[in-house]
C-alpha cells in the first residue's frame, strides 16, 4: 500500500562535506589548467607590482558608477569633439601617401635642423636678400617644391578615395 506522498528529505550536505566537494572541484580545475594558471599568476604578479591590480579593483568594484562617470565625461562637448577629431584624424592618416611623403620629410628635417642651428638669428631679411637668396640653389629648390605643393593643393580634384 503506497499512498501518495509529497515530502522530500533532501540530502543535506554538512558544511564540511560541501567544503570538501567545492575544494575537490577547484582542485580538478587547477590541475586541468596547470600551465595556463601558472602563466596567469606570473602576469598577475607583474600587475600587482605595477599597481594595476588596485586600479582595476576600484574600477570593477564600482562598475556601473565608473562607467556612468566615464560616459558622462566623454559626453562633454570637448571630449565628444576630441573623439570625433581622433576618428577623423585616423581616417585622414589613412589617406596620406607616406611613401611619397618620405623624401619630402627628409628635406623638412634638414630645414628644421638648419633652423635649430641658427636659433639666435636676429638680422632682418630685406627684398634684396630675398632676390639674392633665389640664386642660392638650396633655397631655390625649396621654393620650387613649395610652389608645386601649393599648385597641387589648390587644384580641384574628385573626392574619390
Amino acid at each position, binding site marked *: 500500500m503506497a499512498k501518495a506522498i509529497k515530502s*522530500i528529505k*533532501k540530502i543535506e550536505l554538512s558544511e564540511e562535506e560541501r567544503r570538501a566537494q567545492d575544494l575537490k572541484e577547484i582542485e580538478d580545475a587547477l590541475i586541468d589548467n596547470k600551465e595556463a594558471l601558472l602563466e596567469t599568476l606570473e602576469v598577475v604578479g607583474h600587475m600587482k607590482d605595477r599597481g594595476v591590480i588596485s586600479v582595476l579593483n576600484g574600477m570593477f568594484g564600482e562598475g556601473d558608477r565608473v*562607467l*556612468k562617470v566615464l560616459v*558622462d565625461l566623454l559626453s562633454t562637448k570637448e571630449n565628444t569633439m576630441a573623439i570625433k577629431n581622433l576618428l*577623423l584624424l585616423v581616417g585622414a592618416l589613412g589617406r596620406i601617401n607616406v611613401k611619397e611623403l618620405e623624401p619630402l620629410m627628409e628635406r623638412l628635417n634638414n630645414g628644421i635642423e638648419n633652423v635649430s642651428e641658427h636659433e639666435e638669428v636676429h638680422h632682418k631679411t630685406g627684398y634684396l636678400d630675398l632676390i639674392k637668396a633665389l640664386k642660392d640653389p638650396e633655397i631655390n629648390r625649396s621654393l620650387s617644391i613649395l610652389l608645386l605643393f601649393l599648385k597641387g593643393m589648390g587644384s580641384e580634384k574628385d573626392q574619390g578615395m
Partner: protein
Amino acid sequence: MSETIQVTINGVSTVVEKSKSVLEVLHTNELDLPSVCYHPSLGAIETCDTCMVEVNGEIVRGCSTSLSKGDNINTTASHVKEAQDIAMNRILYNHELYCTVCDYNNGTCEIHNTVKQMKKDHQAIPFDAKPEQVDNSNAFYRYDPDQCILCGRCVEACQDVQVTETLTIDWERERPRVIWDNDVPINESSCVSCGHCSTVCPCNAMMEKGMEGEAGFLTGMPDGTLRPMIELTKNVETGYNSILAISDMESAMRENRIKKTKTVCTYCGVGCSFDVWTKGRDILKVEPQAEAPANGISTCIKGKFGWDYVNSDERLTKPLIREGDSFREAEWDEAVKLIASKFSSIKETHGPDALSFISSSKCTNEESYLMQKLGRSVIGTNNIDNCSRYCQTPATKGLFRTVGYGGDSGSITDIEMSELVIVIGSNTSESHPVLSTRVKRSNKLHGQKLIVSDLRKHEMAERSDLFIRPSSGTDLVWLSAVTKYIIDEGWADEAFLKGRVNGLDDYIESLETFTLQYAEEVTGIAQVELIKIATMIHHSNSTVALWAMGVTQHSGGSDTSTAISNLLLVTGNYGKPGTGAYPLRGHNNVQGASDFGSMPNMMPGYEEVTDEKVREKYEKAWGSPLPKEIGLNNHEMVKSIHDGNLKCMYLKGEDMGIVDSNLNYVHDAFEKLDFFVVQDLFLTKTAEFADVVLPASPSLEKEGTFTNTERRIQRLYQALDELGDSKPDWKIIMMIANELGADWNYSHPRDIMAEAVQLADLFAGVSYDRLEGYDSQQWPVTADGKDSPLLFQEDFPFPDGKARLFPIDWTEPIQFDDEYDLHVNNGRLLEHFHEGNMTYKNEGIKAKTPESFIEVSPELADERGITDGTLVRLSSPYGAIKLKCLVTDRVQGKEIYVPLNDSGEGAINLLTSSYADKDTDTPVYKEVKAKMEILKDKGSSPLPKINHRYGNPQPQIGVQVERKWARKDYLFPGDMVKKEANRFGKSH
C-alpha cells in the same frame, strides 16, 4: 524544370527562371540589391523601397517585378543608387542606429547589414523620435515604435502566416506605427503570443523579452547610462563605417557566449524545429529558421516562449526513494541497485509478466526503443505501452485496416495545398497551432475550402465554409451517409477503386443502413447539409481529412477513423499530392513512441510480436529469448493491478495519474503495486505513488530524435547541461538494464538508432548523418536513404498492393442516467499542455490563463443563473471536479467544455470512466455526462481580461501598403530621381 528566359543584367546577357522576381534573380546570381522588408518566407511586401532597380529604363521595386524575355536590368546606374539611397534615408529617419548597445546586434539585423552593404556613411534625413512609448505590456515580447521602420513584416506574418489577424499598421496617422486590434496595448489584444512578429522583425523593434539586456556585452547597463551612451555613440560618429565596424566586433564577441542549438519542440506533434539561444542556463530566445521542414518560421506560444519549466526550481535533481511517509534523496548507485534487486525478485516470485513498462511520448525514439528492449529482452515481458493508447491508437487502427500504414498519408504541405480540408473532432488551432496556420492561410488566401465537424464552435469552426455540430459520438454516421450518397450519385472515383482498392461490394452492402434520413435522425445534421458536404468533396480535385481526439476517444473510435479512411478511398483521395488521412498526433513523439516498439503487440517498425520470424530476428540480435504472447496495454495494466496479477511498473515521462481516465480507480491501482518506479522531470501526481522516483533530463538537455505527425524523424541537439544529477532517459534505462546484467554499450543515441534501423525495415535508411541539422527523413525510409513524404503513390503496403474498404457499424455512445444531464466535452487549450506540468511553470502563460474552467453556454447560464466566476461542482458516476464557470457561445445548450490541463480539483479525469474504444482500449474520454451543482454564485472570472480570447482581431490581407503610397507625403523614390534627372537635363 521551370521555364527559363534570357535577360540582360547590367549589360551581361543571362539566363534566368521566368517565375522569379527581379530581386530573386539578382540574389541567385549573387548580385547585390538592398532588400530590407523582403523576407523569403513572406514574399514581396513592397514597403521599404530599397530594392529600387531599373528595368527597361523604368525604376521599379525589384521584389515585386517579374521578368519577360529580353528585359534589360540595371542595378548600378547612379540614379538607381540614388533612389535606393532615398529609401534607406527614410528607414534611418525611423530607426536610431546604436548597434553596439542594441540587443539585436547579432549579425542578422537587416538595417545594419543594408547600411553596410550600401556603404552608406551618413543619412540625409536625421532620425526623429516618434511620440510613442515602448509597449512592454506582453510578457514575452515588446514593441518599440521608435525603432520600428514600418516594413510590415510582422503584420504580414500575423495576418497571412499565423492568421491571428491582430496586427495592422495605422498608415493614416502622422507617424504610422504597428497597432494591436483597434489600437490597444499588446496584452489586451487578440495576440496569441505565437512569436511570429518578433521572429520576422528585421531589427530590434519587435523583440523577445528574453533577449533584453542579455544578448549584448553593453546592453545590460542601467538606463541612466545607456541613454548617454547612445547619445555619445551618435555624437562622435564621423560616418557609419567606423560605428558599424565596432558593432561588428561586438557582435562577433557575442558568438562566444551565446550558444545556438537546433532543437525540436517538445509540445504537440507538429514537430516544429528551431534554434534555441542560450547563455549559460538562460534561454534567451527561440529562433525559427526558414529551412525547418515542418514549421519554417512558425511557432506557437509554447514552442516560442514556453521553456521556463526547464529551469524550474521544482525540477528533480536526485533520485528519490520512498521511506515511510516521505521520499529521501539518494545517489544513483543506491537507486539503481534497489530497482534491479526489486525487479529481479518480483520476476523470480511472480514471473516476468508481473512487471510492466510504460514509455513516454515526450521521450526520444531511442529511449522508446530502449524501454521496450528492457521489458522484452532483459525482463522477458511484452507488457509495454505508451500514451498513444490514450489518444491515437484508434486512428492507427483505422488506417491499418484500410491503407496499411498508421501515420499521416502525406506532409503538412499536402494539407496546405489541398482544395478541401475536412476537420473532424479536432480543435486544430489550439491543439496543433502551427499546422492550423497552414489551413487558415490557404483558406484565407488561396480559396481552400474548409469543412468542420465539432461540438464546439472553436476558431477553425468560425473560419470554416461549412460547420456542422453532430451529436456527440455520431461522426461515423454522417461520414458513412456522405460516402453512401457519393457512391449513389456516381461520384465515386471508379478508376481508383477498380485499380487500387479491394472489398468494394461488401462495403457498399454495409452502407445500406446509412441513408441521409437515418443520418439526420442520429446526428441531427439536416440532409441538405450532408448533401452539401458530399458536393464539396465531389467538386474538389483533392481532399484531406484531419481528425483528433473528438473522433478517437469514443466507444467506436477505431471505427470512425476507419469511416474517414473509407470515405477517402471511395473518392480517390489517397496517394496524390494534397490528399490523404491525417490523424493529428498530439505529442511531440507520440508517433515515435509506437514506431519504435513501445506497444504490447508490436516490435519496432510495426512488426507483430506473435510472428515467429520477427521474434527470431530480434532474439538473434539481442541474444535473448523473447516472450511470444501479446502483452498488456495501459488500460489492461490498471485492471491487472486491481486483479492482483501485475505487481510492478516502471513508467517514464507520463503523468498517468492525471491523464488516464477514471482517476480514482487508477490511483487505487498505484497504491496496490508492490514496486513502482517513475521517471520524470518533476514530482508529478503519478510520482507521488512511486517507490523510487528517477530525475530525468528534458529535450534541451539531451540528444536523440523525435518523429512528428508527418512521420518525420528529426534530430535534437543538446543545448544545456543536465540539471543537477538528472540524466537523459536513455542513460537511466541503460544503467538499470546493465545492473540487471544486460551489458549494453551505447555511448550516444546515435548507436541506439543504428541498432534499431538494422532491425526495423521501416527505418532501414535512417541515420544520424542524414538527419544532420535541419535535415529530416519521413518513414518508410529505404536502405539507400530515400524517404516518403507522400505515401501510397504507387501502392498500399498489403500483399497485393491494394487498399481495403473496411465495413463498419455505428457504436452508440455510453448512456448515462437522466440525472447526469450535461455532456462534458474536454480537450486542449492553446497556451497550456497536457496536465500542465510544463506550461504552469511559465509566469507569462499563468498570468493570461491562471486556471482551468468550465465553458457554459449562454442558454445554460441563463437557465441556472450562472455568470463568469460562478463556482460549481460537476459530478459523474465516477467522481467530481470543482471549477469556476465561463459563459461563452463556443458551446451550446447542455454541452459544456472543460480544458484538460488541471492536475488538482479540476482534473477532468476524475469524471471520466473506464469504458474504452471496443477495438483498442482507448478510454472514452469524450463520453462523459455529469450533473452540476452551484457552490458559490459570484466570483471573479477564471479567465482574466488580458486573455487573447477577449480580443478583437482586425482581419485584412497583408500590410495594405497601398495606404502608405496614398499618403500625401509619399513619393516613389523612382519618380524623385527621374524628376531630378529631368531637371538636371534642362538646366544644363
